[in-house]
């Protein structure tokens, strides 16, 4: 390796990159947009269930429910029509409504409680509402349910009651990935331009070797991607928990997308081809980051994707206070994928340069 040559190519690439209006534009706009998106998302989770009720003669009972049960807020309405309207419109966060008939308290009757839910309400909420209506029936009638169960809840892991992972926090891996993807495309375009304009040929008839050229490109891609993702993570309050582990994951992530950039830049024949190639590789790699938005929904096969370890590390450190011991397996897998993608990118670029 000739470090003087690598440094010269790196500095030249910085000049070329800084003068490419398209990439400067999408880099800045991307960063601003992703940060803005983060801050516009809700930073907390409302765990209170707002329940609308129409009832007659059960004021004492419902006052007791509203005050005593943490997480349940009872909103009373005078008429069924008002209740329906409030549920449909989501007024005051009301997600469901119960209309108790006037004969609910009459002994010997079998009253029907109307339950109003929006179409978007999960089925389990609906069942819970039905259960609540039954419980109220037992309470009002003063009788015991057929079986009186005592439950003891054991929370495994961190008890998130009152401290749910917000949408902001869930979006962090995806935003980090978007930034890395933008820089992947920038690197791919830089390489592709060198190949198409044959400037790489002019470089390689000097004492510069192919390995110097590839090393400079890898350095450029990694520093660009890492710098931008570090700026992003700073601006979206990403540096919480075990920061060294998070930094290691981000460095590995930057190296990995550099490998993708080398691969896409040396495979595409023109600008559009490079963009399509980069997207074709990056879209599957985004799946674990999308999976982080919907915890518990990720399929097992997602764990073999190269970016799974990166997403796990970001989510783990920033939301679960995970440490090195929790994430060592994911980081090892991420490091292995880095080597594979960087190696593959290097081989393809070397072959491309050799055939010019």
């Amino acid at each position: 390796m000739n470090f003087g040559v690598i440094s010269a190519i790196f500095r030249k690439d910085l000049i070329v990159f800084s003068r490419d209006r398209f990439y400067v534009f999408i880099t800045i706009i991307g960063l601003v947009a992703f940060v803005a998106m983060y801050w516009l998302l809700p930073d907390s989770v409302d765990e209170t269930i707002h329940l609308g009720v129409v009832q007659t003669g059960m004021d004492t009972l419902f006052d007791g429910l509203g005050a005593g049960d943490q997480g349940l807020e009872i909103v009373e309405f005078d008429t069924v029509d008002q209740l329906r309207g409030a549920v449909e419109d989501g007024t005051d966060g009301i997600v469901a409504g119960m209309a108790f008939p006037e004969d609910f308290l009459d002994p010997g009757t079998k009253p029907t409680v109307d339950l109003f839910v929006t179409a978007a309400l999960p089925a389990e909420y609906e069942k819970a509402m039905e259960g609540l209506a039954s419980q109220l029936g037992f309470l009002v009638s003063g009788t015991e349910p057929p079986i009186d169960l005592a439950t003891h809840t054991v929370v495994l892991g961190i008890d998130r009651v009152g401290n749910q992972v917000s949408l902001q926090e869930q979006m962090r891996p995806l935003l980090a990935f978007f930034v890395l993807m933008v820089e992947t495309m920038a690197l791919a375009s830089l390489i592709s331009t060198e190949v198409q304009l044959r400037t790489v040929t002019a470089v390689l008839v000097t004492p510069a070797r192919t390995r110097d050229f590839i090393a400079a490109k890898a350095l450029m891609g990694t520093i660009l991607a890492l710098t931008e993702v570090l700026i992003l993570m700073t601006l979206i309050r990403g540096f919480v928990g075990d920061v060294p582990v998070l930094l290691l994951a981000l460095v590995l992530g930057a190296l990995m997308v550099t490998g993708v950039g080398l691969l896409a830049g040396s495979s595409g024949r023109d600008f559009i081809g490079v963009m399509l190639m980069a997207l074709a590789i990056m879209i599957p790699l985004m799946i674990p980051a999308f999976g982080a938005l919907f915890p518990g929904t990720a399929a097992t096969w997602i764990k073999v994707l190269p970016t799974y370890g990166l997403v796990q590390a970001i989510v783990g450190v920033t939301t679960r206070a995970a440490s090195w011991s929790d994430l060592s397996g994911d980081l090892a897998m991420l490091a292995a994928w880095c080597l594979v993608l960087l190696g593959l990118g290097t081989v393809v670029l070397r072959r491309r340069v050799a055939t010019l």
Partner: protein
Amino acid sequence: MGQVSSTGPALAVDSISYSYSDTLAVDSISFEVAPGEIFGLLGPNGAGKSTTVKMLTGQLSPSAGSIHVLGMDARSQLADIQARIGVCFEEKNLYTAMTATENLKFFASLFGIKLHDARSLLDRVDLAARADDRVADYSKGMRQRLMMARALLNTPDILFLDEPTDGLDPVSARTIQGLIKEESARGAAVVLTTHDMYEADSLADRVAFINQGSILAMDAPEALKLQHGQRSVRIRARGKDGDVEEIVIPLEGEDAADQVQRAVAELDLLTIHTEEATLEDVFVAYAGRGLDA
């Protein structure tokens, strides 16, 4: 740096070949170029000239044969060789987002040279006034002149120039031809690839005709023209009926002088010119096709 022979040829090519898949692009060609000599590789498009230059500059490795540049083996001492050669490509492969000065400083740094005075080098190619303009704003001729300046950055011992004046305006072409002569006078060997017979004729000390990957002939342009061309006198005269007639008298015939004298005495002459064969004529004689074919 490797051992460099100071007395031998600047470039010694021995039976090199190269194939692209199943196509034989260069077929066992050999030649030598002396220090200070301008050597022209003349042939039509696709003849194998560029492939030959790529092998000579280390972009391709020959499948057979050997190349010695400044006494160094091209296979084992490529980096040392590339530190002492200058290459001007047919493609305008410059960094267009950078200025001429930035381009030169970047390439100088690849040679390990601190280029403090890019302007004087740019002055040699008449670009000093545009030194700080981005190359994207340059004309084709200006880009070619900048490529020539780039090839001279390391004061090379051998210059490889691939179609250096192709499609250029006369001013740019003259500037580049002037530089080639200056470099030759300095002692640098120049390998000039062209399909322009006039350029080869006016610049090259020796030319090699290359066609279908093989060298057909190699000698000084004058010698080739004398060996294979036909000298003649072309006369245009007004005939008795007032029409313009054209007569060509070959100078090789025994009575050529008598024929010329008789024509001058008897005809109403309009113009009279001596003619000699061009390199194109000689090439056609060898290859059965023209240089632009």
